[in-house]
């Protein structure tokens, strides 16, 4: 199955729900305010948020006027273009050319960090990369075991210490091990934490500092994992995590349900953090690089193939 098919399959349900509404909005109608109002509501229903939805609709309206579009059926094209412009170009992962690339994975509780790491490890291992995992979620019960199961499944080593030990020390160990074993990639799992817990955020800053010290340029990527069903709090998460650990990319998970992941729009718009991956299920292959155009196409134009 090709990459796009997988993406389509995963987003099928979300697409169907959104598409139905959009089709009824667009079909056989003249372009008047009510069309745009409904479009706005549909965007809000996708967790795009009130402000960003209004801005998107305004941009779509401007662009439609510029292109002299008169029928509502022609709006999806405009929508896709406007969304793609907002989302920006695809953002590839940064890699360290001379030594291991260190990836720090952060997020709130239950966002899907550990699962994402398992899938990331699999993706890179399939490319022939040598991957090592750091079990730096030393807080949650059985989090280390969960990562080890993934390590076995994928066939990569997991650096770990006992539960309750210092997560920064685990990251330190993992970077040392990666250097010694000439690994290409170190992926560090961290405990889920709500962004309003200052002491936990300080801990995260410390983990980052240790990585910086042990390897110049590290961490090369700091990925914030956001549950695709998250509402407007996702924007707060992005803002705070960005401030504390300089997030370089977003991973949106659980998009195989009916959630649309619309929260990425305000995150990109207000925080300027690119989306790098999307998660579409619990299988090893269910993680895909984020393609803004595909994402927008899948949302706005369900029937035409790209």
């Amino acid at each position, binding site marked *: 199955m090709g990459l796009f098919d997988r993406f389509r399959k995963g987003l099928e349900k979300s697409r169907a729900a959104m598409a139905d509404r959009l089709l009824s909005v667009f079909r056989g109608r003249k372009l008047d305010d009510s069309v745009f109002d409904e479009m706005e509501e549909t965007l809000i229903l996708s967790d795009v948020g009130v402000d960003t939805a209004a801005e998107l609709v305004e941009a779509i309206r401007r662009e439609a006027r510029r292109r002299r579009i008169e029928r509502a059926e022609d709006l999806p094209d405009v929508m896709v273009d406007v969304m793609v412009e907002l989302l920006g170009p695809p953002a590839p992962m940064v890699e360290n050319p001379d030594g291991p690339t260190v990836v720090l994975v952060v997020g709130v509780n239950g966002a899907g960090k550990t699962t994402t790491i398992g899938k990331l490890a699999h993706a890179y291992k399939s490319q022939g990369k040598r991957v090592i995992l750091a079990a730096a979620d030393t807080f949650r019960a059985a989090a280390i075991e969960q990562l080890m199961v993934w390590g076995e499944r994928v066939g990569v080593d997991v650096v770990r210490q006992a539960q309750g030990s210092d997560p920064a020390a685990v990251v330190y160990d993992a970077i040392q091990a990666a250097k010694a074993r000439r690994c290409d990639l170190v992926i560090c799992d961290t405990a889920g934490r709500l962004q309003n817990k200052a002491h936990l955020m300080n801990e995260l800053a410390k983990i980052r500092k240790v990585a910086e010290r042990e390897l110049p340029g590290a961490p090369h990527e700091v990925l914030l994992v956001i549950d695709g069903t998250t*509402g*407007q709090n996702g924007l707060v998460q992005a803002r705070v995590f960005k401030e504390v650990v300089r997030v370089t990319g977003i991973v949106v998970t659980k998009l195989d349900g009916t959630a649309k992941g619309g929260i990425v729009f305000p995150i990109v718009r207000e925080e300027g953090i690119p989306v790098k991956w999307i998660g579409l299920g619990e299988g090893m292959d269910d993680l895909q690089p984020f393609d803004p155009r595909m994402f927008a196409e899948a949302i706005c134009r369900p029937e035409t193939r790209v």
Partner: protein
Amino acid sequence: MFESLSNNLQAVFQRLRGRGRLTEADVDEAMREIRRALLAADVNVKVVRDFVDRVRARAVGQDVLKSLTPGQQVVKIVYEELTELMGGSQARIRMAPKPPTVVMLVGLQGAGKTTTAAKLALAFRQQNHRPLLVAADVYRPAAVDQLKVLGAQIDVPVFSLDGAGAVEIAEAGLGDAARRGADIVIVDTAGRLHIDDALMAELESMKKVLQPQEILLVVDAMTGQDAVHVAEAFHARLEVTGVILTKLDGDARGGAALTVRAVTGCPIKFVGVGEKIEPLEPFHPERMASRILGMGDVLSLIERAQERIDLEKAKEMEARMRSANFTLDDFQEMFRQVRNLGPLDQILKMLPGMNRVKGLENLDLNDRRFRRLEAIISSMTPEERRDPGILNASRRRRIANGSGTTVRDVNQLINQFEQVREMMKRLTGGGKRVGRRQAMNALRAMGGVPGLTGPGLPSFGGADAGPPRERVHRKKKKK
């Protein structure tokens, strides 16, 4: 972004005030503000629509527009409607006439079912029940281990069956409960998507086998618009009996609570707060209403204070304050009591209006400053603590060295202490009334949070600044 609804509404009506009579269009604008506030809190679009209609009907019926403070009137209506909509809940588990009572926890991945199962078990154990946890999440790696670890922590047995399917485990779990004489069986199930037909069917089979008294839907407080689909689907297939809202210790407004309640009609029975395994807390509709509207949660703050402040010690301290024997030891005890309330940044968030102060999210009001003050006091001899008057330059230097601070820090602490003591004297002396400024300075000294009590809540940037010099001088002049 989190501007509270009452401010926005007040602004709308203020703008209109000058124009004399209010029109239908003016009401529309107010309703738009309400809609916006609820959408920003993640209440589902459809739920919002119905809700706004109800509020409008009431607002028009009650002639709020003739009132002097229409903004506040409307907020009151919104608040009451919200409370009512989410209310009628009972934080109780329906018990089986003949034990065991069976409780099934269901929900999406990552909602917090496993943690919630342990918290629920602990609550029952504390009420002298004999709960059994059944680990029926056979899909997520190490989920069974997680429940076992949590069970061991709270001393509740956990039943698991390697290699078995979820339905089989459920059945065997009931058998195990009978053998152990457990009177409550809490079944943790795997997280699943509501559109995953096979897995939803599995839950139906489990329900058939378990015949549970309660099927509780566990919902993450951060959930957005999709909460409506999740609640609908789970309710349609399983007839959910109640809802547990988790991760409420975060800063999400939690509009999903209203959505889920409106869709299922089921009461929200408990809320989950924090990752540590502590009993679940009851759900308070009126507090949730405040939270959704961004109006702060004073009630929770008061409750926390009542719970965590040691009454005995507080009384003792009060007595000592009255006798004017207030020493640095008591001063230190005061810090400890305040710290017991929890991280300061969280406490501040519960205060009305504080969620509008920019930058508060990241402000590290946490223990650092408190810890420094404690270190300074701990570096003093008992004699010095009783009588700071003997602190000469050399003693101060020693204390600074001992506590890893500077002489300036030590001086600052002594100043603050003197101010508090001064205020105590005035309070207890029955003489002059304590002026607002002294009270403010004393409060500042206590919390070390400048600007907190000041008018207009200015300058949150410098959490380390002491009381402003100028004010200290002025106070001295008065003396």
